[in-house]
């Protein structure tokens, strides 16, 4: 069985602050980077016990080169590096039996969620597809869904698990911590979290027959609310991106792949507006 793993970091057990997940930090980040890798390893080992035998891991956090090779099985493949056209869902077109989202976090604006954001907290204030406020998990799950791959496991804090399993009820959620606001969590230990993730992965694959690929029904409408008006100014330059408010733009297409690429382009050009004028 072929398994895809999109690995983020904010939802790793114990993580409660940016320095722990910021690759430029030389004190806490190296510690949590190892915990992140071990949670990925636990998911892979759990999947293997339920028939998983081929793994593609997509490092999906920050500059996307966090995972430590020496803590992973030698037979996995890994996608490393940023600026991928499908970002956290890169490689989805290879088609998998199932996908895992490890270390995921809640969407921007959600209360009681550690380090909650949606791709870029400096630029994106809210992201909605067909009226539904989206987590990264949902945006990425819909790319995997295009290729028929269901997301069956998500790990992170309880708010993340609750929102993702509400949208993807067939997915197994492993809550490794409970958030106390944005910058605090009551967490399992890394060892206990890995054990829970291992069991969750096994359970998720056992339940695979009732899992479904997640898709958005066309016509698809993407609405982005920006943190600042100047970011919307830049997004509006993109073809077919409509300005629908001082800090809001809209893009419509029947093809979610086109919508997702437009979302990434908008997020990135919005980032360009953050540079000095």
């Amino acid at each position, binding site marked *: 069985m072929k398994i895809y793993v999109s690995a983020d970091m904010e939802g790793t057990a114990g993580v409660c602050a940016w320095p722990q997940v910021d690759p430029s930090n030389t004190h806490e980040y190296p510690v949590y980077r190892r915990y992140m890798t071990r949670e990925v390893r636990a998911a892979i080992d759990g999947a293997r016990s339920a028939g998983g035998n081929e793994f593609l891991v997509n490092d999906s956090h920050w500059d996307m080169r966090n995972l430590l090779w020496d803590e992973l099985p030698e037979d996995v493949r890994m996608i490393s590096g940023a600026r991928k056209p499908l970002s956290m869902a890169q490689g989805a077109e290879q088609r998998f039996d199932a996908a895992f989202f490890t270390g995921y976090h809640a969407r921007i604006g959600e209360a009681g969620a550690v380090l909650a954001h949606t791709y870029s907290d400096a630029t994106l204030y809210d992201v909605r597809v067909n009226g539904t406020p989206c987590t990264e998990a949902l945006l990425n799950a819909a790319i995997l869904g295009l290729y028929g791959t269901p997301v069956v496991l998500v790990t992170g804090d309880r708010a993340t698990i609750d929102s993702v399993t509400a949208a993807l009820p067939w997915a197994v959620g492993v809550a490794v911590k409970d958030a106390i606001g944005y910058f605090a969590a009551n967490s399992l230990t890394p060892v206990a979290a890995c054990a829970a993730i291992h069991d969750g992965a096994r359970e998720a694959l056992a339940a695979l027959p009732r899992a479904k690929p997640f898709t958005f029904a066309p016509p698809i409408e993407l609405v982005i609310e920006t943190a600042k008006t100047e970011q919307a100014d830049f997004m509006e330059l993109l*073809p077919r991106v409509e300005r629908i408010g001082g800090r809001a733009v809209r893009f419509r297409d029947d093809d979610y792949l086109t919508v997702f690429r437009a979302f990434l382009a908008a997020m990135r*050009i919005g980032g*360009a507006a953050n540079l000095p004028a």
Partner: protein
Amino acid sequence: MKLYCSTDMEGVAGVSGWQQVDARTPHPEYERYRRYYTQEVAAAIEGARRAGAGDVLVNDSHGPMRNLLFNELPADIRVIFGNRKPYSMVQDADATCDGAFFIGYHGAIGDQNAVLCHTYTPSVIYELRLNGIVCSEATINAALLGAQGVPLLMVTGDRTTVEGVQAQMPWVHGVIVKESIGSLCTDSLSPVAAQRAIADGAAYAVANRSAAKLFQIPAPVEMRVTLAKTEQADYVAMIPDFERSGPREVRFVHDDIHTVFKAFVATFRLGALA
């Protein structure tokens, strides 16, 4: 007669190096050339009014686009300041304008003997073509003016710039303020002589405006942008409806030049972040 002036700085008399026009890390020379720049704009307005121009809208179109010195310009004109305009160097050039000047313009990136030549963002844009025509800033800006019904009447800058514009728009009156020797050296008129030539050229251009035509790029407009680096093309190719036509090239086709123009602005904005 309402006159529109898009004003750049590299084509001002005497300018031969980036420090003279760099508003972001101002060198003492920038303050000096900023004054010459303003004086060339004032000269163009003075000459145009001699031939009957009334309202004047000036669009500061250089760098951060807040260079012109108000106290050296006539009190009754309007000025557009600030970067990040969706139509950038031709913002607000609408049908109320009867004619346009491009003052202090420079050659397209890649032009030989064109001082400080570039096309919008030299770190990103290696070449810009519309329907196969290699574009300078003057070319794409004039195409937007043409779509708005505004004819380009005059261009000032170095010889390569002026002759390049006239090759595409033969009706445009040119004022050559300097000869370029390579891309970082010029043989120039003095500021005073350049301003006199610009005032006279402006009067001539306005007086003869009935001979001017609209520069139009027929639809569908095919834009091809060659990027300086492959990673910029990686980013830019994500823009809706863009096609990756080469490792360092993207292609975009649309019937409306306004959409193409904004897509070009998006290209250099997004490319700059890569």
